[in-house]
């Protein structure tokens, strides 16, 4: 008897564990909506700063080559390692005869609306150093018909793919190494088109997709002839700009360009929002001061991130999660206000470690894109950056 009772007790105890508390919430008596107060406000940037020089031309993943579109004419340049006079075959150096040469680049973007493009490849003289000091003027002056190695028509359908120039026989004479060249090939890549446009070429930063220079050799040995390739790697590649941007105005919020600019936007968040409210949506609003410069077909992208601490240009950007890497596509030529949803970053501001209430702005693929944008700054008489915040006040649980 007692055992049955005890068993019943235990069974009842276990059976009673389930909980299902929910009741329908009828408004207004039982409706949380009445006590959830949502507020919408717009805050102007307190201070903004533009910093330039993060990524220099050529340090990006792509080389910009253009005929006047998206900021002016640009010419790609590359310098390869020295081609030796002899090659080693079984530990013995032999002279060689050049059989053929292959020059290559990889196209990674273009304006699909532009037709009839061609890529001209020139050999630059040794007088053009092809380094970070090289200017557009000295390169452009060297692009004479006699230095033209090849003109490669770019198919109108080509938006991403390699372009190869094969030289053999008499065409090999188009590459001439003088005494000053020391067997170092220096090339310039110039675009020709009927209308201003541009293309994006992979730089050496992408490895094999970058500019290439391969020589095929024939080595005469006593009993046979050896044919082999002699690839030369890129020592330096970049592009030169006819109209460099120079130092951006401090009264303009600037992103993009080459060397690339980034902007730090700081906001003062009212204590009411930061300490006791929940941000449910935050939208950064940027007013372009000029049409956004970008190449149609290029990924013109604005990147917005939070920062761990405000150290000016060296502020460490928050990139601990992909959800905190916020991007917004920019439309070439657009002058409309740019809206960027920055809610994930703004919600971090409630965290215990209190990251600065600031955003670091940059363009995607810095110095590897034509994208360049100028927005109003906190010092602008109009078009100041603003942050539209929608937040909810603390719920009055004690009043329910």
């Amino acid at each position, binding site marked *: *008897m*007692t055992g049955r*009772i*005890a068993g019943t*007790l*235990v069974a*009842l*105890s*276990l059976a*009673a*564990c*389930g*909980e*299902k*508390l*929910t*009741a*329908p*919430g*009828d*408004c*207004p*008596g*039982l*409706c*949380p*909506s009445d*006590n*959830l107060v*949502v507020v*919408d406000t717009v805050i102007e940037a307190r201070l903004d700063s533009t910093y330039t020089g993060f990524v220099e031309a050529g340090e990006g993943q792509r080389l910009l080559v253009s005929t006047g579109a998206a900021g002016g004419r640009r010419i790609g340049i590359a310098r390869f390692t020295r081609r030796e006079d002899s090659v080693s075959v079984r530990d013995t150096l032999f002279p060689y005869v050049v059989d053929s040469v292959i020059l290559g680049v990889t196209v990674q973007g273009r304006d699909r609306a532009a037709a009839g493009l061609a890529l001209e490849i020139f050999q630059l003289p040794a007088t053009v150093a092809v380094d970070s000091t090289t200017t557009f003027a000295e390169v452009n002056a060297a692009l004479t018909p006699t230095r033209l190695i090849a003109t490669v028509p770019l198919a109108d359908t080509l938006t991403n793919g390699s372009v190869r120039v094969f030289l053999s026989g008499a065409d090999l004479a188009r590459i001439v190494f003088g005494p000053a060249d020391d067997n170092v090939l220096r090339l310039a890549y110039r675009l020709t088109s009927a209308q201003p446009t541009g293309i994006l070429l992979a730089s050496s930063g992408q490895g094999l997709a970058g500019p290439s220079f391969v020589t095929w050799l024939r080595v005469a040995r006593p009993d046979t002839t050896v044919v082999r390739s002699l690839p030369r790697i890129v020592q330096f590649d970049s592009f030169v700009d006819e109209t460099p941007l120079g130092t951006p105005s401090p009264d303009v919020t600037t992103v993009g360009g080459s060397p690339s600019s980034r902007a730090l936007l700081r906001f003062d968040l009212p204590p009411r929002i930061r300490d006791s409210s*929940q*941000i*449910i*949506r935050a939208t950064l609003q940027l007013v372009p001061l000029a049409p956004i410069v970008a190449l149609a077909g290029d990924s013109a992208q604005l990147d917005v991130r939070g920062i761990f601490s405000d150290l000016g240009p060296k502020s460490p950007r928050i990139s601990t999660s992909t959800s905190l890497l916020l991007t917004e596509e920019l439309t070439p030529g657009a002058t409309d206000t740019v809206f960027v*949803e920055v*809610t*994930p970053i703004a*919600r971090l501001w409630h965290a215990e470690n209190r990251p600065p209430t600031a955003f670091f702005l940059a363009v995607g693929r810095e110095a590897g894109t034509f994208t360049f944008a100028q927005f109003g700054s906190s010092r602008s008489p109009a078009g100041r950056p603003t942050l*539209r915040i*929608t937040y*909810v006040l*603390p*719920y*009055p*649980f*004690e*009043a*329910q």
Partner: protein
Amino acid sequence: MRRLLLAAAVLMPAAASAQSSQFGVNGLGLPGRQTSARAAGSGGAFAFFDGNSSVSPAALLEQGTLTASFTTLQNYRTSSNAAGSLSGRDTRFPQVAIAGPLRRIPLALGISFSTFTDRDFSVASSDVVNLRGVPVAVADTLTSEGGLSDLRVAGAYRFSGWTVGAGLHLITGANRTQVRRTFEDSAYAPIRERAEIAYGGIGASLGITRPITPALSVAAAVRVNGDARIDRDSTEVADVDIPLTLGGAVRWRPSPRLDLAASAAARRWSAADDDLRALGGTGARNTIELSAGAELAHNARRPQQRPVRLGVRYATLPFPVEAGSQPREIGIALGSGVRFAQDRLGLDHAGVDVALERVWRRASGGYSEGAWLVSFGVLVRP
């Protein structure tokens, strides 16, 4: 056997107390009844005479020996309002008491822990709100777990036919509350907010029991309380008056096998009205509670061995769902119990009581609720 009973009691889920209800969303929650399963079986009519209940401290001397009692309550309910109907269930521990007499002097002491109000609920709703000038559909959930509990230390003394009891009450407890909102428009991040609302207060009670004839007894009790301090996440936000309670009961035993009782209690909850309204709530209103019940013994020598208990109950509830209205509650109850582990002196060292109640609650505005309440009490007399 006693060990098994204690183990079973420990296994039972411990939570705040009393029945969850949509009528416990506002104010301080749904008032607890502070009765044992035995008293619940007769609609609470015998609570003024029940030493395992916490209604009157004078009832402590009803315990012939040291007794520990544990009561669980399983609640199955269906809540309806204009937004629809939903069924729910939960389990509570509404009453725990230990009490017993001292030797040689007619004095009993006891301590009990019972539900004062229950704020266990979860309310789900949907709505359309205007955000940035655009209508956005939202889904809300408001959840609370906890309530106010009443810790009572009391004593009762018998002299010249009177039994007088006094108790000191400590009101304590906390609600772990949470509100969540999700938006149909994914541009808006979900809202999730939590807070712990803690309560603290003190009170005192006085009770008397007086047999008029061998078959007729009367009892009365009064309870006064100070303000309950309300803290939100350890910061004081308000004080709320806890009501004065006046009650009385009469018990008549027309035959050795039949026991009848009726009780009434009034609580001055309106004292908390201003405080709750100042917090933005719907206020509070005075309440009354009436009950009548019978206990028919199977064996007059062991009246608690398989008796049949019946009772009815009517009560008004203090916290309106909508300002200006007052919810009401009507219930009928049926119960029984067994005693076992009897020693050579005829003392039962253990027992269980079961009560089944059907409760209907209603308030203007289309709010209604039907609930089955299953109380299960365990007694251990070491």
